[in-house]
């Protein structure tokens, strides 16, 4: 029965193939007649085909869904057969949607072939985006699915196809617009596409549900009642869809874990859901702030956490401060779209808490039309929100690339990193407003490591013959010491007490520098990382007496622990697979946190019991 009805639908709709066929023919002709160099035109054309033409075809197909039943008056005939109405509906739907899918597949094939025919196209963005990525195809698929479903669902309500077409376009675009706005309202920070896709699918399914129910229950001889019944059902299901969509939007997110900071024995991190911290004493993860932007570095000092919260549609950024347990949240300043404020039309670049967390400093930039460039201002304010002061920075440097790296408790000075070439570190005196150069010739990666004591910073500098030098700068005396020189220094970390530093030199040598003794000790020759940026991560653990290294052996990942004499003591197998190189780790005395960035999970292992546990996902 199904086979016969399926075939019936295909035979009926065969004449509709003409429209897409002609469209594709025109597309091919135009495509081939344009010279190869005009990639933008190709992109545009393909975009039109995928994003406009095909959904239009879908609309037409859907609107003609029940056309033959109307034309031949076959309703009474069909309903007098011993076949359930919902079966009639669903068989029709699936038969016709397979027609749509085959048209899409043919189009995709054509595009593929055409792109291959054009010389030099394979390296263009068009090829990568359209063919390689399949991103546009999925959008096309989604649009076509929704367009078809909506118009099909209402096509049995009225016999004039044209009206159906019009109504589906109106309703479809109206709902798409409304749900987009609603979605943005729910998730103002960024658009989580799968969530919005989910929304659209829910809406399309509402149409399906309302359509099938109306089809089954309504009296076919009374059109007015039919439409009314459908509207009631549709409203009901749309309400459910929006509720489900709301739940979906508020509860799913990238869950991308970023910005992990160690501070006083706890680890702080953030995801779409907010700021969290892991407390080893209770072996638990708790949320201390809800729903903040991600990827913003945080400053954690003296029991306080500073963070940024984005306003609607990124129109403004707010600088907040709270205790490390999440209490006493306070918004200090709002930067951006706030009228009558010194921060109007400005952007927040970087911020830092003073070492005693009594003050916070931040830099904003604003585009100045008079000088045709960006202008930066350094501000500082008390942690209770009082005493805002600011100073325009007249560095002749691109403002965006400034980063505040340290604000030690002495001297009322800030240390600023200039990330643009040539990279420099400056010391800025808040009272006098003057600055002095403290270090230059920095090498990449531009990572400045500060020990918990915060009186030193470690960084890399370039040597004479393209070598890299690991340097340590005393912030009080401004004395610089060159600790080690090698072809490459890939990673360096301070110990938890701040008296030792471990680094990877030459790609495979794990070396420890003892600050107090001023000694260098080579620990181990690790395997070369392949490729180079998949470098081992290592941390000091267990009262800084041991080092734990993440390593890979034959595709499996391990934590290697190097003990007192710094000989390899233990190997702990990491209970998950990781594609992007060795996972990042953080050492907290006897606990090591391991991040599975593929699945956005955080694991911890207890070095004494060797017990693994997933603490966040």
């Amino acid at each position: 029965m199904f086979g016969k009805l399926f075939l019936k639908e295909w035979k009926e709709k065969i004449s509709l193939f003409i429209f897409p066929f002609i469209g594709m023919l025109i597309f091919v002709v135009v495509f081939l007649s344009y010279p190869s160099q005009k990639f933008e035109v190709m992109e545009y054309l393909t975009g039109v085909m995928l994003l406009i033409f095909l959904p239009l075809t879908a609309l037409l197909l859907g609107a003609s869904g029940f056309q033959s039943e109307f034309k031949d008056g076959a309703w009474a005939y069909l309903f007098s057969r011993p076949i359930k109405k919902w079966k009639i509906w669903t068989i029709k739907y699936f038969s016709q949607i397979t027609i749509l899918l085959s048209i899409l597949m043919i189009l995709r094939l054509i595009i593929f072939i055409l792109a291959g025919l054009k010389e030099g196209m394979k390296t263009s963005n068009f090829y990568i985006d359209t063919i390689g990525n399949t991103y546009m195809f999925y959008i096309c698929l989604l649009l076509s699915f929704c367009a078809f479903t909506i118009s099909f669902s209402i096509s049995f309500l009225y016999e004039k196809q044209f009206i159906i077409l019009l109504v589906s376009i109106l309703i479809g675009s109206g709902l798409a617009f409304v749900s987009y706005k609603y979605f943005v309202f729910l998730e103002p920070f960024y658009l989580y596409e799968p969530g919005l896709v989910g929304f659209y699918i829910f809406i399309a399914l509402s149409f399906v549900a309302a359509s099938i129910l109306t089809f089954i229950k309504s009296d076919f001889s009374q059109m007015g009642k039919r439409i009314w019944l459908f509207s009631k059902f549709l409203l009901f299901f749309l309400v459910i869809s929006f509720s489900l969509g709301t739940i979906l939007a508020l509860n799913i997110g990238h869950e991308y874990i970023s910005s992990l900071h160690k501070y006083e024995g706890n680890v702080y991190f953030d995801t779409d859901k907010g700021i969290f911290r892991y407390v080893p004493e209770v072996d638990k993860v708790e949320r201390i702030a809800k729903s903040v932007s991600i990827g913003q570095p945080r400053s954690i000092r003296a029991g306080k956490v500073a963070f940024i919260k984005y306003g609607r549609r990124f129109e403004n950024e707010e600088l907040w401060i709270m205790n490390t347990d999440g209490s006493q949240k306070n918004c200090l300043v709002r930067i951006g779209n706030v009228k009558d404020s010194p921060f109007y039309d400005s952007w927040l670049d970087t911020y830092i808490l003073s070492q005693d967390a009594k003050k916070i400093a931040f830099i904003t930039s604003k585009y100045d039309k008079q000088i045709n460039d960006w202008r930066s201002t350094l501000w500082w304010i008390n942690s209770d929100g009082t005493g805002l002061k600011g100073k325009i920075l007249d560095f002749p440097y691109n403002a965006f690339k400034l980063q505040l790296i340290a604000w030690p408790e002495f001297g009322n000075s800030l240390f600023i990193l200039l990330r643009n070439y040539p990279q420099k570190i400056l010391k800025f005196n808040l009272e006098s407003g003057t600055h002095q150069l403290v270090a230059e010739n920095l090498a990449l990666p531009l990572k400045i490591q500060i020990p918990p004591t915060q009186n030193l910073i470690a960084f890399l500098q370039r040597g004479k013959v393209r070598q890299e030098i690991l340097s340590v700068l005393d912030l009080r005396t401004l004395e610089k010491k060159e600790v080690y020189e090698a072809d490459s220094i890939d990673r360096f970390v301070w110990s938890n007490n701040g008296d030792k530093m471990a680094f990877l030199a030459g790609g495979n040598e794990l070396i420890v520098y003892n600050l107090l003794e001023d000694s260098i000790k080579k620990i181990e020759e690790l395997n070369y990382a392949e490729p180079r940026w998949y470098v081992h991560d290592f941390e000091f653990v267990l009262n800084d007496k041991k080092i734990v290294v993440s390593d890979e052996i034959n595709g499996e990942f391990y934590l290697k622990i190097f003990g007192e004499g710094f000989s390899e003591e233990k190997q702990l197998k990491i209970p998950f697979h990781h594609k992007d190189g060795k996972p990042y780790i953080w050492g907290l005395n006897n606990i090591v946190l391991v991040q599975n960035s593929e699945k956005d999970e955080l694991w911890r292992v207890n070095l004494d019991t060797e017990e693994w546990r997933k603490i966040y996902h």
Partner: protein
Amino acid sequence: MSEILRINNLSKSFGRKKVLENFNMALEKGKVYGLLGKNGEGKTTLIQMIMGIIPSDKGEIFYKDEKIKFNDTSYKKEVGYIPEDSFFFSWMKIKELLDLNSSFYPKWNSKKADEYLERFSLDKKMRIRHLSRGMKLKLGLIVALASEPELLVLDDPTSGIDVPTRQDFLKDIIRELCEAGTTILFSTHLVHELERIIEHLSILHGGYLIIDEDYQMVRNLAKKVRMTFENSTPKKFDVEGILREKKEGNRIELVIYPWDEGKKKKLEELSPAHWEMEPLTLEELFVCFVS
């Protein structure tokens, strides 16, 4: 179980217009039922409700003593349906239509279908849109009969068809009857040929059945009396059930239902000079009942 279909208190309105009200009907297995009614009085509505095409507002329908709900479909496997203006998918070939239907009905008899096709000189490859009205009627008959139905419901299928084709159609129905003992519900406003084949007469008027009797009984009880009076004709007749009165000078023609001896006596008392009794055709009967 001798009742194949029973309808209890069926009601249906379209908007404010009440088409059927407290309608009752029962069909016994194996009999031929004639359902007469004027156009627009609800015959098609009734049949569409029986066939589950539209829902009723109130009331119940039972098929073989089992209640049918609006979306039940299993009973339809045993019911053949020939509507007025057999609508099909006009782009299909006859073969395709038959194939499609064969998948719906478990008892589909394709041999029978082929036999009928040959008898009607219909080619399987013909497209339905190219068939004449008469051919479509025949095709509708084939589809209905090839499913080996136990109940055959016809909704005025022969209106607009020429007489010879109508007669052929009826002959085929009769042939089917002989072989299978199918119960037949024949609804129409074309009354003429029905007289010879119906066993039970139902007349639908004003939303319910005003006549629902064995046909022979109705015929026996319906009389046309023609009286000629010498002198003046009586103004009034003290007799119940006069359906129609025609006057022509001294001649009066009365249609009386139901007839009994008492009424005969009363009329005789009026001493007509001349007295004649005639039977009524079904057509005349129908007209009298519905006007």
